[in-house]
């Protein structure tokens, strides 16, 4: 029986770059996946998003947050955070600046 897909929900500021797409559904692999692997899959057809969310080292940008089922991955293991099947992953532009 296939695992439930992961839903990646984009912030409004990024939706305009991908034709208004608000959510990307990613198949869950048989084994577990990390945030890095999830983003690789989610952005495969939306390359413009990758440079916005991650720097060239693959790290999530300083003022971007990735929440996995409501938990802030950037406070945990970052891009190494495990993403369970069926998870809801929110990408959020951090409330920062002045």
């Amino acid at each position, binding site marked *: 029986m296939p695992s439930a897909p992961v839903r990646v929900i984009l912030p409004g*500021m*990024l939706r305009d770059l991908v034709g208004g797409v608000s959510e990307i559904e990613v198949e869950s692999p048989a084994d577990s996946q990390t945030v890095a692997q999830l983003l690789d899959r989610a952005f495969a057809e939306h*390359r*413009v998003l*990758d*440079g*916005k*969310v991650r*720097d*060239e*080292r693959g*790290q999530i*940008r300083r*003022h*971007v947050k990735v929440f996995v089922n409501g938990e802030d991955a950037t406070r945990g293991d970052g891009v190494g955070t495990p993403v369970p099947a069926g998870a809801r992953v929110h990408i959020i*532009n*951090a409330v*920062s*600046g002045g």
Partner: protein
Amino acid sequence: MTETIVAIGTRKGLWIARSDDRSTWSLEGPHFLMSEVASVAIDTREGRSSLLAGVKSWHWGPTVQSSTDGGRTWTESAERALAFPADTDTALERVWQLTPDPNDADVVWAGVEPHALFKSTDRGEHYELVRGLWDHPHRPSWEPGFGGGAVHTIVPEPGHPESVLVAMSAGGVYRSSDGGETWVPSNPGIRAGFMPDNEYPEYGQCVHKVARGQGDGELFAQNHNGVYRSHDNGATWDSIADGLPTDFGFTVLAHPRRAGVVWVVPVADAGERIPPDAQLQVQRSEDAGATWRQQATGLPDHSYTCVLRDAAALDSADPVGVYLGTRNGDVFASADEGESFQRIATQLPDVLVVRAAQIA
């Protein structure tokens, strides 16, 4: 018909001022609202009306944007067109400088934070790290200035494509005579008064900006305390600060046709960072810094703002236009080589970069 454009990059976007006569100006923008624009190049080589801009979104990171219609419409460069290679384990923070090369109409140089130089050979569409500077043994010793650690100045030598000079805060001046393959520090004569012991180190000076003059081998430098001239393409430097109200400042401009004509925008002191006597002004020399005179007509007194290292520019018209942008969002323009200024923009965010040119 020729149009003068002034590109104004600020902490929160880019504006473009336009004029047919340098007397009446229109202002359009913002482009990239809420993104910092720290670098702009106007590329008029081969008759182009192209612009490049280093744009940084605080959320979504730095990119290079380009325009081929004089700044009216913009396109983001290809994904990661300017990025550090994986083996450097480094991420681009900010594009501080974009410099079209006078010797090759396809080459654009980019100075970035952290301290690094990139080169494009396709008019700014893609960039490659200049390994010779990145691998320099001094690099771990280069310290960030107050604004960050970056290659903020790139000075190619017209007629000599193998000769390039860069400047950085706080690493000093470095020169390459082989197109960027190898680099040597080139700071003899430049004082680093903030150093505890040796005030004339081989490198580590806090140079703020370097401009190429029209004399043979003529360069001018504004440092963190110190104004200098070189007659030998940067091999050695002599102080030309005598006669100035202060030796501190961020920017220096050199006349595009007349040898020895140079402007600086003095700042009272490193600890104050306001105009001398609160009078916004430029200082002009026509003898390569031997003597100076103030130009301030049309510039405000009771001014407590500051002009940053790239927030001043010249155009190429005759007489030369002089442009200043301030940290409190004003932009001043002179159509008579600094003798008088008018305010062409106000109430903008703090101005980081100004570039001016005549385009078709």
